[in-house]
C-alpha cells in the first residue's frame, strides 16, 4: 500500500507569496507520491494545478480551536493524510512564542473540562500543557450574597480526580502548535488573513475552464495569494469572516454587562474554583497555580470601566469585598444545608457531601493588567454550507460565566474530525453538505442547550429577585445534600453530558 510508504516527515511549509512557486512544487510532488494514480491531475489542468495551492482542508483561523482541529486531523488514521492549509496572520503560528515559567500568569485563561482534557490527551497535546503552568482544581464552591445557601462540589462526589483545569490561553495555543510540529501532517501555514472567498456554483462547475479547480472553494488572502480547498473550516472567532462570506446569519444579543478579568495573588495556594453571586452578577476566582488566581467579575459596563482604571489598592479592596466581606453575610452551613435536613433525607451521605462553607482566600495583589469585555451571546443559524463549516467562536460565542466557551469549541473539533474521518472511510467528498450536516446536527443541539442554560443562568443572577434568592439558596443547599444530584451537576459542568447544568 503505497499510502503507507509515503509517511516521510514534512517540515511545516510556510507559504509566502514570494516563495510561491518553490513551496508549491514541494507540495505538488508530495501529493503525486501520495496518490498512486498517474492520472492524478487531468492533463489539461496540469498547468493550473501546479501553480495554484490546492488543499483538502483550509483552516481559516489558527486560534485555540483551529489549531486543535489540525492536531486532531493529524492524529486520526483516516484523516492524517489530508493536506491542510492554516490561514492566520497571527505571528505566533510561525515564530513559536516562548513562555517563561516565572512570568506572572496571563489574565486570559480557560477553564478546561475533563472532556477537553481527554481530547488534548487523545491528540497528544496535553503533555505540552503539562510542561507549563496549569492548575487542576478538585473543589468548587458556589454561593450567594444573601447568605442563605452555598454549594461545594468535590471531584470525589463524581468519582473523579479533578473537576477541571485552568490554563492560560497562550499555553493551550502553544501546546497545540508544539503538538502539530511533531505530526506527519501535510500542512502549509499561510501568514495572511482571508479577504474574500468564492464557493463553487453549479454554473461555475459546468462552465469552468479548469475543471478540477471549479469545484473547489477559492480563498483570496490579504497578501494576494489564492488558495483552493475542498473544505473551508471557519475557526476565525466570533467576528468570523468565513461566516460572513458564506452568508450565514447569526442570532445573538449583548447583555448590558461586562466582565473584568485579571490575575491576582493571595498569601497561600488555592485549588478551589470559587464563584459568588452578587446583585450585579457573579465574581469568580479561579486557581492558576502557586499563589495566583484569575478573576472573572461580571458587572455593568460603567462599573467595569471604573474597576479597570481605579488604583490597585481600591481594586483589591473591592475584590475582597465582592468575594467575601461585602453585600451580605457568609452562609452558615447549618441554616439549610446542615442539621435542619432530617437524616433520612441524606442517602449515602459521605463526609464530602456535607463539607462546610469555606472562606475564599484574601487577595493581596493584582499582578496583571485589568481587561474588560462586554458579555454577549451569538449563535450561527447554520454551521455548514457547501464546502464550508464553522467551529468554535465562529459558530457560537458565550459569555465567560461558566467557562464553557472554548470547551464548546473543542467539542466541535472532536465531532467534526470524526465526521470527516467517517466521510473519508466511505469515499465521500469531504466538502459535501450532506456529510457536514451530520456534524451540524450533532453539535447544534448540544451548543444550543448549553447556551440556553448559560443565558438563563445569566438572567437569573443578573436580577435581584429578593425572596426568590431563598429558593435559589435552597436549590444550592439541596444540591449540596443530595450526592447523586450533585454528581449529575458536576458531569454537566465538566462537559461529559451534552445537557447543561443547574437548569
Amino acid at each position, binding site marked *: 500500500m503505497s499510502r503507507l510508504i509515503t509517511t516521510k516527515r514534512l517540515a511545516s511549509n510556510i507559504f509566502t507569496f514570494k516563495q510561491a512557486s518553490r513551496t508549491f512544487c514541494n507540495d505538488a510532488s508530495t501529493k503525486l507520491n501520495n496518490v498512486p494514480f498517474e492520472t492524478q491531475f487531468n492533463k489539461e489542468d496540469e498547468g493550473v494545478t501546479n501553480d495554484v495551492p490546492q488543499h483538502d482542508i483550509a483552516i481559516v483561523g489558527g486560534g485555540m480551536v483551529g489549531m486543535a482541529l489540525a492536531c486532531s486531523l493529524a492524529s486520526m488514521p483516516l484523516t492524517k493524510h489530508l493536506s491542510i492549509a492554516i490561514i492566520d496572520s497571527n505571528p505566533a503560528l510561525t515564530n513559536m512564542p516562548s513562555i517563561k515559567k516565572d512570568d506572572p500568569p496571563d489574565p486570559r485563561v480557560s477553564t478546561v473540562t475533563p472532556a477537553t482534557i481527554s481530547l488534548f490527551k487523545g491528540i497528544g497535546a496535553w503533555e505540552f500543557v503539562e510542561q507549563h503552568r496549569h492548575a487542576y482544581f478538585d473543589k468548587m464552591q458556589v454561593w450567594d450574597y444573601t447568605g442563605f445557601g452555598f454549594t461545594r462540589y468535590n471531584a470525589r462526589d463524581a468519582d473523579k480526580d479533578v473537576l477541571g483545569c485552568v490554563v492560560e490561553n497562550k499555553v493551550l495555543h502553544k501546546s497545540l502548535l508544539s503538538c502539530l510540529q511533531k505530526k506527519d501532517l501535510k500542512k502549509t501555514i499561510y501568514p495572511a488573513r482571508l479577504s474574500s472567498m468564492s464557493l463553487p456554483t453549479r454554473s461555475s462547475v459546468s462552465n469552468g475552464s479548469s475543471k478540477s479547480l471549479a469545484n473547489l472553494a477559492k480563498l483570496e488572502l490579504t497578501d494576494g495569494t489564492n488558495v483552493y480547498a475542498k473544505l473551508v473550516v471557519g475557526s476565525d472567532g466570533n467576528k468570523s469572516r468565513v461566516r460572513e462570506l458564506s452568508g450565514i446569519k447569526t442570532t445573538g444579543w449583548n447583555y448590558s454587562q461586562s466582565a473584568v478579568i485579571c490575575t491576582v495573588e493571595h498569601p497561600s495556594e488555592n485549588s478551589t474554583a470559587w464563584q459568588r453571586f452578587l446583585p450585579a452578577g457573579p465574581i469568580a476566582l479561579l486557581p492558576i497555580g502557586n499563589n495566583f488566581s484569575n478573576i472573572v467579575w461580571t458587572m455593568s459596563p460603567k462599573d467595569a470601566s471604573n474597576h479597570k482604571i481605579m488604583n490597585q489598592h481600591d481594586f483589591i479592596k473591592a475584590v475582597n469585598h465582592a468575594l467575601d466581606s461585602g453585600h451580605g453575610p457568609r452562609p452558615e452551613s447549618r441554616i439549610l444545608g446542615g442539621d435542619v435536613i432530617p437524616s433520612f433525607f441524606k442517602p449515602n451521605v459521605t463526609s464530602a457531601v456535607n463539607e462546610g462553607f469555606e472562606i475564599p482566600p484574601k487577595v493581596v495583589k493584582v499582578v496583571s493588567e485589568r481587561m474588560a469585555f462586554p458579555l454577549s451571546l451569538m449563535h450561527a443559524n447554520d454551521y455548514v454550507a457547501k464546502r464550508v463549516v464553522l467551529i468554535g467562536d465562529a459558530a457560537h460565542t458565550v459569555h465567560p460565566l461558566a467557562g464553557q466557551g472554548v470547551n464548546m469549541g473543542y467539542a466541535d473539533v472532536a465531532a467534526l474530525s470524526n465526521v470527516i474521518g*467517517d466521510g473519508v472511510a466511505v469515499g465521500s467528498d469531504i466538502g459535501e453538505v450532506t456529510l457536514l450536516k451530520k456534524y451540524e446536527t450533532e453539535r447544534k443541539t448540544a451548543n444550543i442547550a448549553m447556551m440556553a442554560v448559560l443565558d438563563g443562568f445569566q438572567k437569573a443572577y443578573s436580577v435581584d429577585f429578593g425572596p426568590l434568592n431563598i429558593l435559589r439558596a435552597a436549590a444550592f443547599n439541596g444540591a449540596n445534600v443530595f450526592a447523586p444530584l450533585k454528581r449529575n451537576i458536576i458531569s454537566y459542568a465538566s462537559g461529559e453530558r451534552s445537557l447543561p447544568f443547574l437548569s
Partner: protein
Amino acid sequence: MFSRSLYRLRNLSRHNGRSFYNSSSYFKHSALITAFQPLLHNKPYATTTQHAASTSSLNQTELAKFAAIAESWWDAEGPFKPLHVMNPTRLAFIRSTLCRHFGKDPFSVRPFEGLKFVDVGCGGGILSEPLARMGASVTGIDAVDKNIKIARLHADLDPVASSIEYQCTTAENLVEEQKKFDAVIALEVIEHVADPAEFCKSLSALTVSNGATVISTINRSMRAYATAIVAAEYILHWLPKGTHEWSSFLTPEELVMTLQRASISVEEMAGFAYNPLTGQWSLSDDVGVNFIAFGIKNSE
C-alpha cells in the same frame, strides 16, 4: 425509494396497477413521490435517447425515465436525493464486507487499492466516485448515454475520480467482451432491468472466481425485513412459498435464490431503514426498506 414510484408507473402501464396500488405503504410516501415529480410529469417516453445495443436486461421505458432527469444526478436536493443520502450507509456496508473478504486493512484510506470494480448501472456516478476515492480502479457502465456523459463531466472535477472509466454499455456486452472484475456492484438497478435472473447471470459472469458481487434493491414487502441484518443462513433456509407473483421487485429471499442459481452465494445482507437526521426531509421515519446483499462467486 424513488424506484418505488418508477415501479408504480411501470405497473400502471403494464399491469394496470394491480396489488401494489392498494398497498397502504405506498400512500404514506406521497412526499417522496413529490420529490420525483419530474419523473412522473415529464413524458420521457418519446425522447430520442441513445442506448447501448439492445440486450436482454434493457427495459426501454425505464431507461427513458432516467435519461429525462439525467441532469440532476448531482443535485443532492434533487430527485436522486435518496441515493445521495443513502450513499454513506451503503458504502459503509461495502467497505466492511469487502475489506473482510479481500483481507484489506479497514483503517486504510484507500483499502481497495489494486482491485478492479465495475459499477453496473452507475447512473451519474454517485457510487463510482467514492469507490475510486477508496482506491478501487473503477469502471462505471450505464445503458443511458446521457448518464455516462454526466458521470464523466462530474468525475473530471476531482483528480482522483477522473481515473474512473465510464462506458455506455450493458453488463451483457461486457460479458461478451470477456471482462472480469474483482467486485461487481449493481445498486438500485435490478428493479429496473427486464429480466433479473438473466441480469444476475451476467453479473456473475463478470465476477472473477471468489470475487465479490454486491446488489442492493428495494424490498417488495417493504417493511418486512426492516433494518436488521438478516443472517444469510436464515434466508437460505426460508424457502419461498411460491405464493408471490413475480415482479421485478425482489424480496430478499428471492434475490438470494436468484443469485444462488447464478453461482453467487450470499454471505451477508443488511436492510436500510433510512431515517433522515434532520427535519429537512419530511419523510422522516417512514421511508420503507432497501436492502443490500454481498455474495461470493463460487469458485470454478
